[in-house]
């Protein structure tokens, strides 16, 4: 059975999606348990896959029994096994945590919601494991489509921002598709490994160069890298809370994973780092992204919006770390993909809990919350510390790698940007903690429909998941060394020092 893990990771949620819809047509209370079951299964499979990879190295899976390049093949190495587990974990935890919220928001359309939810996860996990450049595009689109729908399903400005998200996202995906087309044009294959074999002969060709640039631009758009970030804050901050706590941690990270995958394993490092020689400008862009993101975060007084700007900065972390082009930097970027996924999940979940209880996401409405919802705020503090980068939370260690990568590469500007953003994050979060800690709780009656004086702790399962994520943050921090030495070191090509 374990031979089929790579396929099952995707197939379980995919098949479940249709069963969920059918089940929900019978009785919509079936939707949640089915989803939970499927995601749990896929999570366990992902973990099994990681273990298998750790034991036996790279795992190949030929879909429809056709060997690549004729057929589509999955190729699971340490890199995507790790990211896969992260994605599956976030998906499952978030599902468990947001059950009540979802019931409250979409009670009449639970079936469609969970169908889209699980299709999104199937798409993202597929992106992570697939070894075929075009298959990746299809999965990209399935993840994107479901994402648009989930983001758009809210009152207020959500539909508008979701539509803009569609425009930008489609352009990004189309550019990626074009890039793949260019590669196909000169190589005649779509399989990543095969491309990596056939490309080096063609490096001089202008087609390959433009393919590289087009792909990179498309992916940068998709991941919300600085100049192309405009869609991200709107889409994520206006989305319904349970959705933004799912989309925010995953989508951008997976896109960054795709960039790393393309750069390292399709265009080889020799091409990406040495021949193209765009590392320097990319790192500088990342610096700008970090600084700009942090300052934009300072400028807003709305909780979710602030967090989305922090994401913009974090994307800068990872892209910059990757383009440092040395082992430390890339390890930092990969480690930060995992850590940031969990951090963002944790912080968005607690934000969702707070907003659902307070009824507004204005920072100034959070007075006295430490008294009212101590557990939630405690977790929020932990997440904040992790984003600031305080040991022993995991945020510190990925930042450690990124900075030491910057030192090794002599990119002191990048180091300075990282430190600056840590300081700004410190200000950002303690601004909130102060309001929640010092200002006496005063309830604004009628305001936002319900009596805020009724504010109390979030529902139980939400608290449990919050605590679990908080513990995860520490665990990832403590075991950062092992994760790097056991997994990430094998994920990076030996050529890179």
């Amino acid at each position, binding site marked *: 059975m374990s031979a089929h893990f790579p396929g099952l990771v995707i*197939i379980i949620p995919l098949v479940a999606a249709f069963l969920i819809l059918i089940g929900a047509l019978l009785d919509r209370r079936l939707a949640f348990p089915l989803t939970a079951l499927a995601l749990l299964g896929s999570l366990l499979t992902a973990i099994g896959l990681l273990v298998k990879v750790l034991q036996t190295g790279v795992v190949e899976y030929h879909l429809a029994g056709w060997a690549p390049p004729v057929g589509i093949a999955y190729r699971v190495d340490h890199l995507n096994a790790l990211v896969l587990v992260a994605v599956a974990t976030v998906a499952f935890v978030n599902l468990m945590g947001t059950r009540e919220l979802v019931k409250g928001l979409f009670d009449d359309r639970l079936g469609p919601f969970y169908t889209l939810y699980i299709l999104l996860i199937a798409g993202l996990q597929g992106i992570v494991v697939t070894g075929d450049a075009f*298959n990746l595009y299809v999965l990209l*689109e399935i993840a994107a489509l479901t994402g*648009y729908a989930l983001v758009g399903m809210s009152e207020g400005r959500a539909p508008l921002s979701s539509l803009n998200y569609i425009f930008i996202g489609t352009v990004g995906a189309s550019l990626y598709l074009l890039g793949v087309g260019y590669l196909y044009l000169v190589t005649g294959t779509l399989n990543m490994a095969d491309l990596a074999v056939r490309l080096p002969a063609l490096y001089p060709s*202008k087609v390959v160069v433009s393919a590289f640039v087009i792909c990179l631009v498309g992916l940068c758009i998709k991941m919300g890298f600085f100049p192309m970030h405009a869609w991200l804050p709107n889409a994520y901050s206006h989305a319904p809370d349970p959705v933004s706590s799912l989309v925010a941690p995953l989508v951008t990270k997976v896109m960054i994973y795709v960039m790393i995958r393309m750069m390292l394993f399709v265009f080889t490092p020799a091409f990406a780092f040495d021949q193209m020689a765009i590392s320097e400008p990319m790192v500088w862009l990342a610096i700008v992204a970090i600084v700009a993101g942090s300052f934009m975060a300072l400028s807003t007084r709305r909780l979710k919006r602030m967090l989305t700007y922090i994401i913009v900065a974090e994307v800068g972390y990872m892209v910059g770390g990757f383009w440092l082009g040395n082992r430390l930097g890339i390890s930092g970027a990969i480690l930060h993909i995992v850590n940031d996924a969990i951090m963002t999940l944790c912080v968005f979940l607690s934000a969702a809990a707070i907003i659902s209880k307070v009824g507004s996401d204005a920072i100034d409405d959070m007075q006295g919350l430490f008294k009212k919802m101590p557990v939630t705020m405690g977790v929020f503090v932990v997440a904040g510390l992790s984003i600031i980068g305080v040991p022993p939370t995991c945020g510190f260690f990925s930042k450690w790698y990124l900075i030491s990568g910057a030192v090794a590469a002599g990119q002191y500007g990048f180091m300075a940007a990282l430190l600056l953003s840590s300081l700004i994050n410190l200000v950002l979060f303690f601004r909130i903690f102060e309001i929640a800690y010092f200002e006496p709780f005063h309830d604004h009656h009628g305001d936002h429909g319900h009596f805020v004086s009724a504010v109390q702790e979030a529902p139980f399962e939400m608290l449990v998941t919050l605590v679990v994520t908080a513990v995860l943050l520490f665990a990832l921090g403590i075991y950062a060394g092992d994760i790097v030495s056991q997994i990430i070191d094998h994920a990076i090509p030996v050529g890179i020092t």
Partner: protein
Amino acid sequence: MRSLALITILLVGGLLFYGTPDFPAWGDPESPASLHVSPYYIEHAVEDTAVPNIVTAVLADYRGYDTMFETAVIFSAGIACLFLLRIYRRKSTTTRLYRHNLTGITLRIAKGGKLPEGSAEFERIDSLWVPYDMIIKVTSRLVVPFVQLFALYVIAHGHHSPGGGFQGGVIFGAAIILYAISNDLRRAFRRLNEKAALLASAVGVLLYAGTGLLCLLLGGNFLDYSKLADLLHTDAIMARSHGILIVEIGVGLAVMAVMVSLYYNLSSAGRHDEGL
């Protein structure tokens, strides 16, 4: 805004332009793209899958996995529209409007009273006057069955001629949509109601994925139709051919249903009243 647009498209255009001179000339049979993988398909499709239409073979077998997700994309689009637009709570209208088809008179029936939904001479309408044309209704009613028949042909004959699940499914869906346009949504619902459409779309994709899963259970890889041989009492090659047919049917079903439910939701903005 315009200046920004101009700058952007000039940048993009320049980027695309840059690579083009190194392209092989258009239609060059020796271009690298045509020399690596695609010859394999052309030369082996028939002996591998017994399907002369190579596009179908590649679509549903060699790259069948892509196609499954393609179907899933369509499916999710349908679900997305439903999710975004559907309005479930009925707004309780005090009065209902009916039209007497023969005379074209509109009756307003006060609260409580209602005419039988299925009746031939009365039809429910939403606004006081709704366009109404006998000729269109009758002709489209005549056309629809032939369109549907053709759709089935396209699906079934995908192995040997251009066509297949997507095309056939779209045509079939178009037939139903034509019916819905020429009459109104309510009548269309009587033929294929919302739940049925959803069910059909789910079942269609499930047919595809399920076939793949079946292959997996029979010891092959996912979607490896050749493992169906024993079930179908044929050899591996014919099994692939049949497997392709099965999934094409699934695709057709799904696409049809999704097209219809897309139309339902978009045309009535999720209200599922008489629609356009």
